[in-house]
């Protein structure tokens, strides 16, 4: 049985289009981007309300696909994350209508 994975990328809002291009060019069939409103890391806090430049804003990019496709994107994502802050997790998920991925 095919195994499906969900990639979650938490990354700077300013860089999210780069991440989206990486996912698209690696062949993921879709993704969805969610805005974060606050966060903490490296002992610094940020919060959307307090930063008029929005330059510290983060987003979460969620993309679901089969294991092969997902593993494929990891190299490119690693290169992206070399330059930007942000974290990536992979979670095993069960999907409905697998044909769609």
């Amino acid at each position, binding site marked *: 049985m095919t195994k499906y994975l969900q990639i979650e990328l938490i990354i700077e809002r300013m860089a999210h289009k780069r991440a989206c*291009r*990486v996912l698209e060019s690696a062949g993921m069939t879709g993704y969805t981007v969610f805005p974060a409103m606050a966060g903490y890391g490296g002992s610094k806090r940020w919060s*959307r309300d*307090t930063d008029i*430049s929005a*330059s*510290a804003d983060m987003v979460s990019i969620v993309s679901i696909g089969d294991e092969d496709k997902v593993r494929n994107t990891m190299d490119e994502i690693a290169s992206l994350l070399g330059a930007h802050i942000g974290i990536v997790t992979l979670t095993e998920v069960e999907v409905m209508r697998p044909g769609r991925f």
Partner: protein
Amino acid sequence: MDVAISTLLSPIILFFALGMFAALLRSQMSVPEAFAKGLAIYLMMAIGLKGGVEMSKNPLTLDIMLVLLAGIVLSFLIPALAYLLLRLTTKLDQTNAAATAAHYGSISIVTFVAATEAVRLSGLDSGGHLVAVAALMETPAIITALYLASRGQKRSEPVAGSEQGELVREVFLNASIVVLVGALAIGWIAGEEGTASIQPFFVGLFQGVLCLFLLDMGLSAGRGLRQGWRQLTAAIVGFGLYMPLISAVIAAGTAYILGMPPGDAALLITLTASASYIAVPAAMRLALPEAKPSIYLTLSLGVTFPFNVTIGIPIYIYLALLINGQG
């Protein structure tokens, strides 16, 4: 002196102070981001239109062209000086120093607007083309800073997913340039008569909206400072206070050479002395992602902006009068 006091006690500055004060006391209040951003677009449309209408009344003289050119040159050169000072007096590395320098070469539109009000209150006149200068000074500094950051580094590969032209678009087509230049052109084309029906919105409300916006700026500056001051050494804070003054003196010299009238000179000096906290930080996240926003943003928004808006502007007006023999 009088100018200084009436500036400091104008509701605009008082609302800024209120915001800073509330943020430093850790009040949870905030102006919703979407609302503040909407007001910012309104403010840029309003000054663009005003500048364009004024420019439509006079021909484009060589004098004006020279001022535009001077703005561009200043924006190109100031970052080099800022970089040098940062490297000599602080422990910032090449990337962070270059990113910070970019902010001081570029400009702050809100500081410019506040200065326009103060100039008006002082009974001076200023030309509409200063709005064009503001738009032109936003970006050259970024180019200088990117050069400084890459000097001596071996050319790195482009980041995965980055796209040809992405940075150029971000830098040359950001909201403030599009709206400022667009509204300037529209004001120029439509002229006084063509814009008469939109004056109640764009002229009548201007100062009131500015109060509300500066309340929000005060909250942002105060919170930025409270959250980020730990990242700043004394040397860095010092830079945030003396750099605007150095820039101001250089701009005053330029204005003197160009023979600019006091109102125009005050605005050119303010632009040069002001530091960006919206357009440049966004560009730096794309171009120099390793540089730390907690340094450049805290310094520009938390230190230099409040300094300029309260103490700086009266000084810059005074400098402008001085070079016109009226100090």
